[in-house]
C-alpha cells in the first residue's frame, strides 16, 4: 500500500492485459484512471510484472504529458489554452489561479492537496471560451475574478463537508 493505492488492484489491472508489454500504455491509463496518478511503487510493479526494466516504464510514463507521477488534488482544474480560449485571455485566468493557490515553479498541486492546476490544449467548447473545467465539469466564459470565486466556493464546500 502506498498513498491509498491498492497493489492488488494494480496487479489485477496488469493481469487483465495478460502481462503483455505492448499494453503498457493501456495499463498505465487504467491505473491512472483509478488513482489519478502513477506512484513509483506502481511503476516498479508494472516493470516487474511485464518483465521490462523500470527505466523503460519510467521512460514511457514521462514521455506522455497525460501521465502524472505526482499525487493529484481533490479538484483537478483544467484551464483551456486552445486558440479560441487563448485569444479570449485564458492566460490571465491561469496566472490568477496560480497566484491564488500559491504555486511555485513546476508545482501543480496546492500545498493543502485540494487543487491541481493544469492546462489543456482544446476542449472543443470554443463557443464558451475561455473555459475552465473542475473535475470535468465545464465552467464557461470565465474571468480571473470568476475563477477565484469558484475556487473559494469549492474550498468552503469542502470545509463544510469535512
Amino acid at each position, binding site marked *: 500500500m502506498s498513498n491509498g493505492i491498492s497493489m492488488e488492484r494494480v496487479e489485477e489491472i496488469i493481469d487483465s492485459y495478460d502481462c503483455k508489454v505492448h499494453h503498457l500504455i493501456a495499463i498505465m491509463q487504467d491505473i491512472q484512471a483509478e488513482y489519478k496518478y502513477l506512484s*513509483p511503487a506502481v*511503476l*516498479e510493479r508494472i*516493470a516487474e510484472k511485464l518483465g*521490462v*526494466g*523500470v*527505466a*523503460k*516504464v*519510467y*521512460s514511457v510514463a*514521462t*514521455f506522455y504529458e497525460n501521465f502524472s507521477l505526482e499525487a493529484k488534488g481533490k479538484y483537478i482544474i483544467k484551464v483551456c489554452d486552445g486558440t479560441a480560449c487563448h485569444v479570449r485571455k485564458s492566460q490571465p485566468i491561469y496566472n490568477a489561479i496560480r497566484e491564488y493557490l500559491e504555486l511555485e515553479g513546476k508545482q501543480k498541486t496546492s500545498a493543502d492537496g485540494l487543487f491541481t492546476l493544469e492546462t489543456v490544449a482544446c476542449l472543443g467548447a470554443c463557443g464558451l471560451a475561455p473555459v475552465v473545467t473542475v473535475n470535468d465539469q465545464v465552467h464557461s466564459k470565465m474571468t480571473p475574478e470568476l475563477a477565484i470565486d469558484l475556487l473559494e466556493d469549492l474550498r468552503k464546500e469542502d470545509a463544510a463537508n469535512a
Partner: protein
Amino acid sequence: MAKGIMFIDGQRVAFDGEPNVLSVIQKAGIEMPTFCYYSDLSVYGACRMCVVEDERGKIETSCSMQPRDGLRIRTNTARLLKHRRMILELMLASHNCSCTTCEKSGDCHLQELAMRFGVRKVRFGDSREESVLDASSPAIVRDPSKCILCGDCVRVCGEGIGMGIIDFVNRGYNMRVAPAFDRKLSETHCISCGQCSAVCPTGAITVYNEIGRAWRAIHDPKKRVVVQIAPAVRVAIGEAFGLPAGQNTLDQLVTALKLMGVDEVYDTTFGADFTTIEESEEFLQRLERGGPFPMFTSCCPAWVKYLENEDPKYLKHISTCKSPMQMFASLLKDRYRKLDEEDGRTTYHIAIMPCTAKKMEAARPQFAHDGQRDVDLVLTTQEVINMIKESGIQLPQIELESPDLPFGLGSGAGVIYGTTGGVAEAVVRHCLPDKSKNALRELRFSPLRGNKAIRVAVIKVGERDVHLAIVHGLANAQKLLKEIEAGNAYFDLVEVMTCQGGCVGGAGQPHGMKQDKKARAEGLYALDRAAPFKRAERNPVVGAFLKEMDHEERHALLHVSYIEE
C-alpha cells in the same frame, strides 16, 4: 537477402545481403559519419548524420534505408554537408564543451566529427537546465551535460546486456538519458559492466578514472607496488600505439610498468590456473554428489552481481571459486604479509583489467581483510594506456621483459580465459582423463570456441556425458536461464561472460568493433598454442603452492560465498 548494384556518388557498388545502405557505403570505402549506428545494435536513426540524397533530392538516413537494385545516391552534396554541419552545431550548442579537460578528449567522436566538418563556431546558446554529475558507481561516471541523446547506451544496456538500467526520460527539448526516477546508478541494479561507456561517443559516460591513485601509490616510497595483468589486456593495449589488434604486447607492458616505477609485475594467468584447478575439482565433486546443476562460472563479476540482484536463487549454482584476479590477490597478500612486516613497506596491489566491473568486484566486502582490500586498485587497459602515454613511453619500441617470478608464470589454459569459451575449455582440459595432444586438438574444433552467442557442447568425462553451454552477452545468458527454467535445456556447466566476445570485449579495453574483438581472441589462442604448457595442473609453481597449502587454507584463500548468511 537482397542482391544487386547501387550507385554511390556515381560509383557502381555491388551489394549482397548488407542490412542497410550505410554498410554498402562503408563497403565502397566511404566512412559515413554517425553517432548512433552500431552494427551489433538495432537501427535507431536518431543522429541524422548518415543522411544521403537520392536523384530526386530526397534526403534520407542511410542506416535505416534498404539497399535496392539501381538505387542512386550521393553522400556529399552541398545540402548534405550543410545539413550535417547544422546538426553538429546544434549538438555542440547543448553540449558541455569543456573539451580540453574532458575524460574523453582526443577519443571523442563528437570532437572528431566537428573537426572533420569544420564546425568552428556555435551560434546558439545552451539553455538547458543544469544537470548533476553522477559519480556514485564504482565503475562509471555519468555527466549528462555532455550527452547528445544518440541512445547508444540505452540500446546496449537494454539489448546487449539485457539490463535496461538507463533510458530516455521526458520528451522533446527536455529529453535526457537517466535511470528510472532519476536515481543514482548506485541505487539501481547496474552491474558495472561499463558497456554504456564503451559505446558513448562523447564524455557523457566514462570509466571511473583512478590514475591519480595509481601514481600516488607508485611514487610513495613506503609502498611496494605489485601489479597483475589480465590475459585480455596484452592483446589490446598495442592498438593504442598503432599495433594491430591481437598482437601480444605483454612483455613491452612489463617493461613500461617497470619504467613507470612499479616494483613487481605479474600475470593474472597464474591466478587463472588456480581457478581452473579449483573450479574443475568443484565441478568433479558436484558430478559425484549430483549437483546443484548447472554450475555457473564465477569469473565475471558483472554476472555474479546480476544473479545477486535479479535471481538470487541461482547463487548456490555459482562456483565458489574466486575470480582469477581475486585468487591472485589473496595469494599475493598472504605471501607478502611477512615481507611487509620485515621491510616495513606495504604491498599495494594493482590489477590491470579489461573490465570496469572489476573495480566493483575489488571493492566487495568479501575481498577485504582487516579493512584492507586484497586488490587495492583496478586500472582498466585504457587507464594504463593513458599512464604510458603520460610517461612518454613508446610501447612498440621498448625492450621486452617477461613478468617476474613466481607469480608471473601461467599456462596456455590461463591465457584463453580472456575470450569467450576460455574458462570452460580450461576446465575441460583439466577434467578430461585423456591428457594427449590429440584431445587438446579436438577441443580446438569443438563448439567451445567460436563467436556464436550461445554455444552448446557435450563432452565425455569418464563415463558421463557432460553438457556444457557457453554464453557471452548478458542478454543471451538471460535467454538461456529462461530456457533452463522452462525445462527446455539442461546443462552441467555454463560459462557466462557479460561482454560480447568475453573479456577481450570488456569496457575497459580500447574502443573496438566486432572484428577487433575477434582478432584479440585469435591473439590469445595463438599465445596458448605457443605456451610451453597448456594445462593448469602442469604449472609447476601452482603445483608447488598447492602442495604447501592444507585444505582449510586453500578454502580460505581461493573460495568465496556470495550468499548472505
